[in-house]
């Protein structure tokens, strides 16, 4: 697995020696664990039924839903690294709903729902994944992916606002 740098620090643009860098250094343990979880969610050693390329493409979709262009570029780079096929790369197209592929359609539908409006999710949404042939462990992997990326994007958004403080 390729080691990645601190994605949040890079995306926020935390200048070494700045006030923000000093404050973030006080929670270096959390930032390191965040990066390790990023690698575990996007590039796990045991990806199960969700390939690295599919994970990166779904994460890219989540970045777009949140209007986060820096994250979008980051996940696009991960898609390239994972050698995403055109069919897989298309998952990142926000206007693509999976077309005639029932599995892709279910994955995309669920990610869009949970990234944007988790409050609206119900038992039925898990049943729909199951009906599309997605295995129980993969349902959890998918949930962790969208949940983690939603967290990471919010940490970065908060730090970006902190950077703007006088």
């Amino acid at each position, binding site marked *: 697995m390729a080691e990645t740098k601190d994605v949040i620090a890079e995306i926020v643009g935390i200048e070494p020696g700045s006030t923000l860098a000093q404050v973030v250094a*006080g929670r270096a343990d959390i930032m390191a664990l965040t990066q*390790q979880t990023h690698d575990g969610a996007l590039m796990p050693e045991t990806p199960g039924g969700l390939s690295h390329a599919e994970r990166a493409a779904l994460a890219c979709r989540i970045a777009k839903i949140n209007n986060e262009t820096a994250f979008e570029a980051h996940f696009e780079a991960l898609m390239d690294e994972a050698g995403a096929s055109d069919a897989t790369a298309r998952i990142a197209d926000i206007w693509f709903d999976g077309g005639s592929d029932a599995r892709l359609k279910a994955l995309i539908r669920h990610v869009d729902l949970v990234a944007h409006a988790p409050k609206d*999710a119900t038992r039925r949404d898990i049943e729909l994944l199951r009906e599309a042939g997605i295995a129980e462990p993969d349902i959890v992997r998918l949930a962790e992916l969208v949940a983690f990326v939603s967290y990471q*994007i*919010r940490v970065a958004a908060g730090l970006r606002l902190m950077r703007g403080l006088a």
Partner: protein
Amino acid sequence: MSRIVHEFTTDIPAWKPYVKPLDLTEASPEQLDALKITPSNTKVSDYVLVLAHDVETLKHRTPLFNGVMYNKGGLSRAEREIGAVGASIVNRCIYCAAVHAGRYNQLTKDETVIDAIFADGVDAEIEPRLKAILDFSVKLSKCPQDANEDDMQALVDAGLARDEILDLILSTALFGWANRLMHTLGEPIAE
């Protein structure tokens, strides 16, 4: 007779998964390690057994969770709970809201703040510092781009130091994660 809980409460419900929890007899050594299971300790919650299906995130998530909520210094533990509650209200995670509202009440021995938040949400009449904390956590939870410079400045004006603001960002964001697991993978049940 059990029923699904739909309203915010500080009575902690049970959590019933929609997904089949990991069967410990089928767990891999890596899963057992992440679950920190020893022969004398096999009591693991259904929630953790569900998450154990994705062991590569679970093994980092547990220490991360504990760090964000309990690390020394920075924002008070009670105020971190407000970040968690703000997120849980936006995401309508009844279970997380109950646990963390309850913890706030325990830590502060004051139920009026949570009562006001559960009754009126962001319009709750609470002291300015808590109000700034709640407003920020709600905005960052809804859509990260909704939180703006004015919300950040409101935190500074309410007296939050930089390290406290960082802890608020972390606890709020953490519940953007936790709520998306708890609320989407199972339901709160009152027994």
